[in-house]
């Protein structure tokens, strides 16, 4: 009744090809942007902003990158943590070697360096497929972490191998890293970058290259037969995905934690991002955000829930129950909707189109 296309006319091809063709969708998206940019910083506590929203956003960006690689291009990869580490360390070296560079430039350059690294480690994908590729990308994961631990040059020869982000500003006195940065500043900075890249990715996957990726995912032999070249297509997927993961890693090190050692990006981080992508829904931009929300928010809620309901349980029991409930919820959501939370969202929208009619 409310959410329908009746009465909307498209007067040009351009309008017809819009990402959000339905007017209500566009209003919803603007509303969401208003909430994200204006409402949330205004009413949220510092805990909410810096411990919940910030990791959610940064990991959603990494999940976006992995979704492009695994969901759209069909290349299962477990090297995400290594690429995030590359982004973080590249950003650190750039920031310390060229202190005059603006932080956005540093982050973008770090992303480009990571894209290069991603291309190198994506070469096996030309020969190996499926779960074999996933385990092979673990080689890149372990190698990159070893490399950052081994060579002191990456950490400017600090005795403990930890990199520490120098305080940097976006403009004027607006610090986004270091002890002077406020939670609101960090949140808005990360939010802007994430929204920008989400829009860019959405456009990319609707374009030629996105269709090539999806063709490779669905049946790569057929894709090759109709003329899609495997080498550039797969390597472009790795490059773009690593670009986003590198930026996420740089943001994590600079804006979220401030000081990071290579083990923060170890294989557990890779698995965490992969879980986000699978739970959120492979091959969907919205899925990256939903998955990130699930994996980041749910454990926090689960460990706070006993306090919320006034039950006093021992801390270790809370942790164990959190694990169990988390595992059970993953199973529940997979059984209810194997294609992820994004599919649930899509079904909800389709039902809403017909409301109040059932079909």
């Amino acid at each position: 009744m409310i959410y329908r296309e009746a009465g909307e006319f498209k007067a040009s091809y351009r309008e017809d090809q819009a990402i959000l063709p339905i007017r209500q969708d566009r209003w919803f998206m603007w509303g969401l942007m208003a909430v994200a940019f204006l409402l949330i910083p205004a009413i949220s506590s510092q805990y909410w902003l810096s411990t919940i929203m910030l990791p959610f956003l940064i990991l959603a960006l990494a999940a976006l990158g992995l979704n492009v690689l695994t969901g759209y291009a069909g290349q299962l990869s477990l090297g995400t943590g290594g690429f995030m580490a590359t982004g973080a360390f590249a950003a650190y070296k750039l920031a310390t070697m060229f202190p005059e560079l603006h932080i956005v430039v540093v982050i973008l350059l770090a992303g480009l360096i990571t894209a290069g690294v991603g291309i190198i480690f994506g070469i096996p994908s030309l020969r190996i497929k499926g779960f074999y590729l996933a385990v092979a990308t673990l080689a890149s994961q372990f190698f990159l972490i070893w490399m950052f631990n081994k060579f002191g040059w990456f950490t400017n020869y600090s005795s403990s191998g930890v990199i520490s982000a120098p305080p940097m500003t976006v403009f004027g006195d607006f610090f986004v890293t270091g002890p002077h940065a406020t939670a609101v500043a960090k949140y808005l900075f990360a939010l802007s970058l994430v929204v920008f890249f989400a829009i860019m990715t959405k456009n990319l996957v609707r374009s030629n290259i996105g269709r090539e990726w999806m063709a490779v995912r669905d049946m790569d032999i057929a894709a090759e037969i109709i003329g899609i070249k495997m080498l550039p297509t797969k390597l472009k997927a790795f490059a773009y995905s690593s670009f986003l993961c590198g930026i996420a890693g740089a943001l994590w090190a600079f804006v979220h934690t401030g000081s990071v050692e290579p083990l923060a990006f170890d294989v557990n981080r890779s698995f965490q991002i992969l879980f986000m992508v699978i739970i959120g829904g492979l091959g969907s931009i919205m899925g990256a955000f939903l998955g990130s929300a699930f994996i980041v928010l749910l454990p926090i809620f689960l460990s706070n829930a006993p306090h919320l309901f006034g039950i006093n349980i021992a801390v270790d029991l809370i942790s164990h129950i959190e694990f169990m409930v988390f595992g059970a919820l993953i199973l529940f959501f997979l059984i209810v909707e194997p294609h992820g939370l994004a599919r649930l969202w899509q079904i909800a929208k389709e039902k809403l189109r017909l409301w109040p009619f059932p079909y």
Partner: protein
Amino acid sequence: MRIERDVIYIFMATLFLMVAIPWAAGQLSDEILFEWPFFFEVAIGGLLAGVMYSLVALGFVLIFKASGVFNFAQGAMVLFSALTLVGLNELGLPMWLAIIATLFVMLVLAIVIERVVLRPLVNQEHIILFMATIGITYFLDGFGQTLWGSEVKILDLGIPSDPGFYFGGAILINDFDLVAALIAGVLVITLALFFQYTRIGRALRAVADDHQAALSVGIPLKHIWVIVWAVAGIVALVAGIMWGSKLGVQFSLALIALKALPVLILGGFTSVPGAIIGGLIIGAGEKLAEVFIAPLIGGGIEDWFAYMLALAFLVFRPQGLFGEKIIERV
């Protein structure tokens, strides 16, 4: 079991390189000491360690072979079975009874997993099933620790663990590793025979090929899955006992699965002999690399070298040494 010619060539090349590269490294660099007795010590130590990896990889292979599921929860199953065994033992059961009770527990676990997880997700994509096993991992981790606690527990089966000097006192081999290798070898041979020559084994292979086709010729899918997960549980228990005796039964035991993954991709996801041969190659390869190549680049390369080694093999055979050739139809 037919071995292709390719595999034999690759195998011989590997053997040659495994001797030649350390020897060459020893000649080229002063830091690396190459002596034949020491080389054999490292190689044998590596082979024995590789057998221990194969034990864990076996569980993965079994489940992938029969249900097409990459069971991420294998590591958690290793930990859970070891915890249950030690927990029951501490509660007062004698060891032999505790082992039988734990086997029973793993059977119940297999039944529950089949009913709750596998049946609703039948014929879904591989990656969804993979994610489901991750849910199982989280659940088992929390459940195991809730039941038996997070402290480290000792598992002492009386296996001697002193260094033994063989071949006239020149070569050092750990007795514990020898016993573990023997037990693992017996297990692998039993499983290989089981898959090849029994009716249930053939049914398992049919199910691995195609669930729906197997159903249509009358193979009871549900029973097969319970059987295979139960067998994987038994393998997990044996692996848990061996590794638990080595490291103590604690949470980190679940991380052993990461060491078994290169074995899996080298040997092929669907091959039991592949798990053993893959384990031997990875074990020997990574130890030889750590001792003879690593000093040139700083050390600590074991982890990623194993994966790089497996990757190198995959370039020549994308389905692993003994894995089924991946046939893609347009």
